[in-house]
């Protein structure tokens, strides 16, 4: 379908979000919708896959073809959708629990498989929907109901994890910086391959450490420096820098070819005839 006049509100459903007032997920979602509209997608040829958690509700609030799946498995679903119909714009959304805890195994493999889709993680460094337990990106000294003396664990560095897995597009954004967030997600959508964006999406109810104010102060936009995202070593240095929170596209491999293309999955697999093609009898003959 052509979609010359699609506006970002066309991606909005008529369901009102039940996120807490002030939740970062509002801004994260708006940026996703803008990115989709700006890249010429339409709701009828977009497929959104959502995980479980506050972030998982996004499928309800956006208007597109969508599946709200089981906890942690959104990326495999997105992989199947894209492989089956490469004409669809596939966007997978989830939280830090969905993506880096229960779904961490899939995250690593989705990154290295490099299917042409976009993965937006709403990272609030807390479990919100279950009312405030630490998450895989929580700081070591973060006190919650299940970590009264801190987590005693290192937080995951999602960007480093993606880099170690051979990621072809690694970015980070902040839900409150609406314009930059939408631009960064748009770049991820436009990237030929697995476009990964970790979005700081503050939880105003359960996280009093990683707040809007904290990110506003801490974030350094790599777009403001002479950072070259195609320079692997420069990207590595920033991604492994524990002392700075970066915003922007940290790494982009422009020469990578998506898995679905390497595999030759270029046709819509939904299109089949109502009987097997004549060549099917060759399959039987092979067994002579």
């Amino acid at each position, binding site marked *: 379908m052509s979609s010359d006049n699609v506006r970002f509100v066309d991606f909005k459903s008529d369901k009102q979000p039940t996120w807490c007032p002030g939740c970062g997920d509002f801004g994260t979602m708006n940026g996703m919708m803008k990115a989709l509209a700006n890249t010429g997608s339409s709701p009828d040829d977009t497929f959104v896959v959502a995980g479980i958690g506050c972030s998982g509700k996004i499928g309800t609030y956006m208007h597109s*073809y969508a599946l709200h799946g089981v906890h942690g*498995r959104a990326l495999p679903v997105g992989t199947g959708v894209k492989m*089956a*119909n490469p004409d669809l714009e596939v966007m997978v959304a989830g939280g830090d629990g969905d993506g880096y805890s229960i779904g961490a195994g899939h995250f690593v493999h989705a990154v290295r498989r490099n299917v042409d889709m976009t993965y937006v993680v709403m990272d609030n460094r807390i479990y919100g929907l279950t009312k405030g337990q630490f998450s895989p990106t929580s700081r070591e000294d973060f006190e919650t109901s299940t970590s009264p003396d801190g987590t005693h664990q290192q937080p995951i560095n999602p960007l480093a994890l993606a880099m170690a897995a051979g990621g072809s597009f690694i970015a980070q954004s902040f839900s409150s910086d609406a314009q930059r967030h939408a631009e960064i997600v748009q770049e991820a959508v436009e990237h030929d391959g697995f476009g990964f964006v970790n979005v700081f999406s503050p939880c105003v109810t359960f996280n009093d450490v990683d707040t809007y104010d904290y990110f506003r102060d801490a974030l350094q936009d790599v777009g403001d420096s002479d950072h070259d995202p195609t320079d692997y070593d420069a990207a590595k240095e920033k991604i492994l820098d524990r002392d700075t929170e970066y915003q922007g596209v940290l790494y982009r491999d422009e020469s990578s070819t998506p898995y679905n293309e390497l595999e030759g999955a270029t046709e819509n697999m*939904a299109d089949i005839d109502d009987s*097997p093609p004549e060549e099917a009898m060759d399959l*039987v003959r092979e067994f002579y």
Partner: protein
Amino acid sequence: MTEDLNWAVGGEAGDGIDSTGKIFAQALSRAGRHVFTSKDFASRIRGGYTAYKVRTSVDRVESVVDRLDILIALTERTVDENMDELHDGSVIIYDGERSMMSDFEAPDEMIGLDVPLKRLAEEAGGAIMRNIVALGAACEVADFPIENLDESLEKRFGNKGESIVANNKEAARLGQEHVRSEYDLSTDYALETTDNDYVLLNGDEAIGMGAIAAGCRFYAGYPITPATDVMTYLKGRIERFGGNVVQAEDELSAVNMALGAARAGARSMTATSGPGIDLMAETFGLVATSETPLVIADVMRSGPSTGMPTKQEQGDLNMALYGGHGEIPRFVLAPSSISECFWKTVEAFNLAEQYQTPVYVLSDLAMAVTEQTFPPEVFDMEEVEIDRGKVVDEASIEEWQDEDGHFKPHAITDDGISPRVLPGTEDGAHMSTGLEHDELGRRTESTEMRIEQVDKRNRKVETARERETLSPRSFGDEDSDNLVVSWGSNEGALREAIDLLAQDGVDIRVLSLPYLFPRPDLTETFEAADEVVVVECNATGQLADVLEHDTLQRVQRVNKYNGVRFKADELADDLREAFDVADEAEVQA
């Protein structure tokens, strides 16, 4: 009973046992003989006993038996492992020059043929061909024209060049010549050849071929014994039909990839075995409640946990019937032969799309590792029909929209089946979810809508009972009061077992159940029978349990759970005992 020959090659894993056996099986098949193969193997690449067994006859063979006529033994253990099956006059081919066989002596009542396999292979061009030398020797013993072996060697080694093929043919002839010149054999096997053309395939290959025939275009899986062959079959073939195979990072991912492809509109499947089914159970309820058509093949092996990965069991019936939390409508189909693995897979794809539910195809290891011959017409692709169910297009979408123009993927209908729209269809955008939802697919906690949606999904099962022919397959003596009920791969052994019993004057009627859910009501059939015996490869009698529940009648159980499939002669003895006809058995003995 057919005039059959039972042949085996055995040694250590890594000895090339599988390919040797397959070459011989193929030679027999090409010579117009029926073949039924089986494997003894361990879950390791090297070391440990392994054997490939071939039963062959000009008539159909459906089972293995407890008899071995010719054995190529590369190790002494091969002989020990098969001592029960060897009999007076069995021929054992071995290489007395191999260090591990140098002390071997064939038992007095058997015929030992000491053939210098390695030395003759080297003469033909390389020690690697020693098993082919043994095949040549076996051809001489069985009086089987060695030219048939040539074709099989060409198929196996053709891509390695003409000289390799020629060397192998020479190796076979050296083996044949050695036996001819050194031994004066009095065996009279004389394997007759026919002009019939047969194809030779295993159950996993049949599932894969059925999937492609049915229009399956996406497969995601994770390697697991004994289901891996489905994936290796599809890889490289499904692409020729516009499809693709993804090897996922685990079964959790595999089933979700398959689900994603199905949501996108592709006919999609995954296959696994018990440990993988456990992981996939996580997503099974989502498939059903999002009303996504998906085919999941469970090629059962011995459980629980890692169990005996290379051994037979039909232990996953309860898992297939009840697996997953909550209450989940589903289909459970159980093919009972390799050809039915093909046809039930085809049917599974139609049922999945017609009813928008997950469909289990419950196969088992006995079929997965067995190769069997069939006339190619058995797999007539022109007989395959593809019915995609209630798919709505742009022209007809309007009647399935609410007043605001939203498509209703979970519309409440009389037959429980809602319209389905494939992504990319204009004005069809909608979400689906594992949460309880309304007709639009949006989360609901409305008590009324909850009941409407649960009833709607369950109504699909009632609709299936009305529309589908779920009959069991009936064979044997239709008028007999002795009723045997079974499922899955036991059918072949049962067919031969009841022939054996009929020779003793014991008549039995057998029902083999390919539809395990929804399944036919057997209450009246059971009431009419004097005695009902349920035969299955598990310890507790999972089918027996559900049939007792269905019919409110007690049944007898014949269970086997040592990891080995039923054999025809053994099963005949079990049934004699179950039907209390032990006297005849003794007379026979």
